């Protein structure tokens, strides 16, 4: 199962188990509904168990879910994606994969139209910016990549990263009621700790954009973070004090991405910039430590320009337009 997309019949099997969650489903019934042999059903049930899905029963008596699995199976997502929605109209699911972004970047436009969603229950090589890793604990977070093929010039594409951060922030609000902050350009924070990271990768020629992949990680139900991330990263559950349905967070994410992407394409970057500024405490008057590839200095934020770049006034009085780099709040 690792590193191969989830077979659509296995996806169907999960759907059958979820649909009949309150009863024991006989093996032969599952086999006929999914269209595989009883032996295959048994193999797949074993694999699901290995993957952490709690299933009671055995081949003779039948199977029943011990707990509703919070598996992001395509068959569970699809009924909630409206027909006109492009984001999530095609879903490729993995139980385990190296990195969803790597999968997304390998797919051809024919196999992966605009809006294709790559999902993994676990990543073994989740990537962040500049070779950093993204902690991707099994079944705890949303590890996703969304393929965009936007009608934008490469030079205009960076605003997509702010759009994605804004969409995550709004999705968290809609699905959990938690009100998150956005740190430029697109980290989503709860109580100052990062609960979502976005790594966007683009394939383009000088004047022609081929693909933008939004790699979006959201920590949902992590009950503790690795020691090295203490105080820096957190999860929705840790900050909200309860578990949340990853499926509901994901569905909200797809809706918000769809809506904000349309706003951008139809209304231009100013709409995104305006909304982003309304949602982020980092937009104006925030005292920051700025780290670029070659320098580090203290500055105060002074709004975004139309491309999404952050204007800052350095403590030494000099004004800068930050196109790439990191900012950290000085408390």
């Amino acid at each position: 199962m690792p590193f191969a997309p989830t077979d659509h019949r296995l996806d169907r099997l999960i759907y059958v188990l979820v649909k009949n969650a309150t009863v024991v489903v006989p093996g032969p019934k599952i086999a006929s509904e999914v269209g595989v042999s009883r032996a295959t059903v048994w193999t797949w049930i074993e694999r699901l168990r290995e993957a952490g899905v709690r299933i009671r029963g055995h081949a003779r008596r039948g199977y029943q879910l011990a707990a509703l699995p919070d598996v992001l199976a395509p068959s569970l997502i699809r009924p909630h994606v409206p027909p006109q929605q492009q984001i999530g109209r095609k879903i490729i699911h993995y139980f385990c994969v190296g990195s969803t972004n790597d999968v997304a970047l390998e797919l051809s436009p024919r196999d992966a139209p605009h809006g294709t969603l790559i999902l993994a229950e676990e990543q073994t090589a989740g990537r962040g910016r500049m070779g950093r890793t993204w902690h991707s604990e099994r079944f705890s977070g949303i590890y996703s990549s969304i393929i965009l093929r936007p009608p934008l010039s490469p030079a205009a594409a960076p605003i997509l990263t702010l759009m994605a951060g804004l969409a995550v922030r709004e999705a968290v609000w809609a699905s959990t009621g938690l009100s998150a902050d956005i740190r430029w350009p697109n980290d989503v924070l709860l109580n100052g700790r990062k609960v979502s990271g976005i790594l966007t990768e683009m394939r383009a020629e000088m004047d022609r954009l081929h693909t933008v992949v939004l790699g979006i990680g959201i920590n949902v139900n992590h009950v503790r973070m690795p020691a090295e991330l203490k105080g820096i990263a957190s999860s929705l559950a840790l900050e909200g004090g309860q578990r949340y349905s990853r499926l509901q967070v994901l569905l909200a994410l797809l809706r918000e991405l769809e809506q904000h992407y349309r706003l951008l394409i139809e209304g231009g970057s100013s709409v995104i910039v305006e909304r982003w500024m309304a949602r982020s405490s980092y937009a104006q008057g925030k005292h920051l430590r700025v780290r670029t590839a070659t320098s580090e200095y203290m500055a105060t934020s002074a709004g975004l320009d139309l491309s999404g770049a952050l204007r800052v006034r350095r403590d030494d009085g000099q004004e800068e337009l930050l196109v790439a780099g990191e900012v950290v709040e000085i408390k």
Partner: protein
Amino acid sequence: MANKTPGRREEGSWDLKEIQELIDLLVDREIAEFEMEKSGMRIRIRRGQGGEPVRTAARAAAGPTVPAPTAETPAPFLPPTHGTPAPAEATAEESTEGLYIVKSPIVGTFYGASAPNAPPFVKLGDTVQVGQVLCIIEAMKLMNEIESEVAGEIVRIYAENGQPVEYGQSLFAIKPSVKK
């Protein structure tokens, strides 16, 4: 060569008939290459060598050269050109003649490696293939992997790791490998 050709467009400039006569003269005398400047306009004609047109420079300021004339195609009328196009093998240090220049499609920060401690994607003298990653340009956490559109040798790297780059700024010069 006629001095007072009727139909001359402008005092001191070339017209097509003059160029045609010039080519005839070069063919008659078996002259392979000819260059001349007149009234701020330069013309350069090169013939032979299998009819291969000389590769033009990638620099914006450089104008086209005249392909070797054939019976069917008269040499085109030329705007003024600067610099002297030369075959790729004879490339001088300052010149980018015959080189493929990789430019930045976005404003951002140039990274020559995938991570701070990782080896660079490419070094001077490396041979690269089409589609090979040369560098990353980052803007607002959008990582744009720049892939080579030609196969060849990296003969110049214009940007330094961590350096801000502008739209259209030159990043690499690649000497394309000769296709056989």
